[in-house]
């Protein structure tokens, strides 16, 4: 039995050093050198200030911006330090009441992703249909033409990887950044 104890303790400590310190720290170094942007969190800077991450959705409420999906993160929507979903059942009264209210505001035929919360609560994307759904509102608020915005949404629509994997989507933060850039010109 004592032999087992010695083997256990020695192997556990050696493994903790190799797997728990050397491996992750070496990967921090290698990843930082090879992919500095990604390893640091794909942050987006504007005028020297971090305005968000291209992978992390953020809350948009103004009419002048395209909106992302509802978010169920802890302590308010799009909390990047407390991810999570609503975990409401399909038969939940709370879910159906929430959808009824949101769908009532957005109108009949609204794409489902605009009235449902994502699993992470930080979904950076909406479907192309959900982006198109908002064009009329943004165009009116910004005094722009629908066609101009349609072109912008089309430019920011990512297709499936290799035409096969995943779903077509629009990154809301990047679309809104492009919108701001367009307005400045």
């Amino acid at each position, binding site marked *: 039995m004592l032999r*087992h104890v010695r083997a*256990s*303790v*020695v*192997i*556990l400590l*050696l*493994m*903790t050093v*190799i*797997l*728990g310190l050397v*491996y*992750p720290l070496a*990967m*921090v170094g290698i*990843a*930082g050198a090879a992919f500095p942007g990604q*390893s*640091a*969190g*794909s*942050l987006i800077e504007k005028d020297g*200030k*971090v*305005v*968000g*991450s291209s*992978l992390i959705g*953020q809350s*948009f*409420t103004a009419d002048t911006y395209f909106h992302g999906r509802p978010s169920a993160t802890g302590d308010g929507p799009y909390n*990047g*330090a407390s*991810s999570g*979903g*609503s*975990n*409401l*059942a399909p*038969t939940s009264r709370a*879910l*159906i009441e929430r*959808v009824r209210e949101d769908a009532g505001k957005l*109108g009949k*035929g609204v794409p*489902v*992703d605009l*009235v*449902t919360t*994502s*699993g*992470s609560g930080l*979904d950076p994307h909406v479907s192309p249909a959900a982006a198109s759904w908002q064009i009329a509102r943004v165009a009116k608020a910004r005094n722009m033409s629908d066609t101009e915005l349609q072109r912008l949404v089309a430019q920011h629509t990512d297709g*499936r*990887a290799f035409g096969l*994997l*995943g*779903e077509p989507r629009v990154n809301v933060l990047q679309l809104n950044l492009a919108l*701001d850039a367009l307005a400045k010109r």
Partner: protein
Amino acid sequence: MTFNGWVQIALFVAVVLLLTRPLGGYLDNVMAGRRTLLSPVLVPVERGFYRLAGIDPAEEQSWWVYARAMIVFHIAGFVLLYLLLRLQDLLPLNPQGMAAVLPDLAGNTAISFLTNTNWQNYGGESTMSYLSQMAGLAVQNFLSAATGIALAVALVRGFARAEAKGIGNFWADLVRITLYVLLPLCILLTVFFVWQGVPQNLGGYVEATTLEGARQKIAQGPVASQLSIKMLGTNGGGFFNANSAHPYENPTALSNLVQMLAIFAIGAALTNVFGRAVGDERQGWAILSAMGVLFLAGVFVAYWAEAGGNPLVAALGVDTTAGNMEGKEVRFGAPLSALFAVITTAASCGAVNAMHDSFMPLGGMIPLINILLGEVVIGGVGAGLYGMLLFAILAIFLAGLMVGRTPEYVGKKIEAREVKFTMLAILCLPLAILGFASVATVVPAGLAGPPNAGPHGFSEILYAFTSAAGNNGSAFAGLAGNTLFYNATLAVAMMVGRFAVIIPMLAVAGTLAAKRKAAASVGTFPTHGALFVGLLVGAVLIVGGLTFLPALALGPIAEHFALLAGTLF
């Protein structure tokens, strides 16, 4: 359901099948101690381990010595992990100043990661320091996975050997699997995941100023290195609370594909290791086929349910052609969310890329059934193969009863002792699941857990104990599990699910190894054909179905009919 969805599913299956044989060959070489590509670098490291630990890697252990070594190793692992979590506020690499983890949560978490369950009664980014994640949780991700593979290989040796006293050396198995298989693959995966956008840094959480001028705090950390072993080791414990639904933990459809492959790769390859060990690779393919039948059936139902969308939402004038999107990410949509859910519960991974709690009743029932059946569809690394081989023993025993002949499997006579131990291992799971779930549905502390009312609330409780006893770790995550009641009962369920299966399984390995090889005769039931596959699938479904149908009727099935009737809770 769309054509594109099915093409993605077919692509995944094809790649798993392509990987099975090469990876199986490599695993076989490693476990037999033969030279491999990595030997020049790793042999000295391996020797260093043995010298310091005072181990002779060639020493054969009986099943009981093997089991004891494993148990002592688990106890040491528990102590270290528990201390790390309790003391994380005093230790370095804690830029967010996370407080010490409270005793009941630390105990539950330590057992959870030791048993390869990775049930999480906490949110990673709001609870754990970087040191706890890296040096505590991720280390156990490696070691519990290596233990699982070691145990499966020990059982395979039981079938392969004749008149042998030992079933291998636990320490050598553990060290070899970790160094030669898990670590190198994880290094490759980490680089890939960072390329796809997964962070790998030690900086504090970033404060961003959003376009609308609000402050947004964005969690960071050494995510990619932990993500790799979480998938490859079928552990499933997320770095972040949202697990692989979090865009940092699964940024693209490509990272999603590789994560799904990482879950199944080793488990599928182990069936090939089994085939090679018993001298007939067809035996391995037969086991894999039985797994494949159950897998595809699950994918079909889950995808159908999720792609159909929620009729109660559609009734409010919402366009639900994209399916049921509550709890799902746009980049994955219904098909990849359903596929991931089936994979993660078929294997005992438990990582999620969508919230199972918000799945349609029948869509959410599939993950539940997968775990209830014992996660024998590919299964956890190692655990899936030994689980399925136990069912194979049962199936062959039933076939023997039908024709009145002593059953044989891959050259070994299956006798009373093996069947008794097999049944013991198989019965412990329903005992833990149904026992604890019944208690939780009558005591106030248990009833306080589920946030949803009606049958779905029952499903949430049932899922929790199923996931714990099945060492899966996925959840109907709404359940408020961080209470003394759930921390304690789930921890016990996790231990029962791990050790009450492993120890009888090792006993079977030991008695099988000691047996003589029986020569195949014309009366031997061939175990590499479609008839055996059918029998095996039947055994899994009948045992699982008879045991759990009443519980499923009270939960997801009742909720399904309530939904059709438009009833809300």
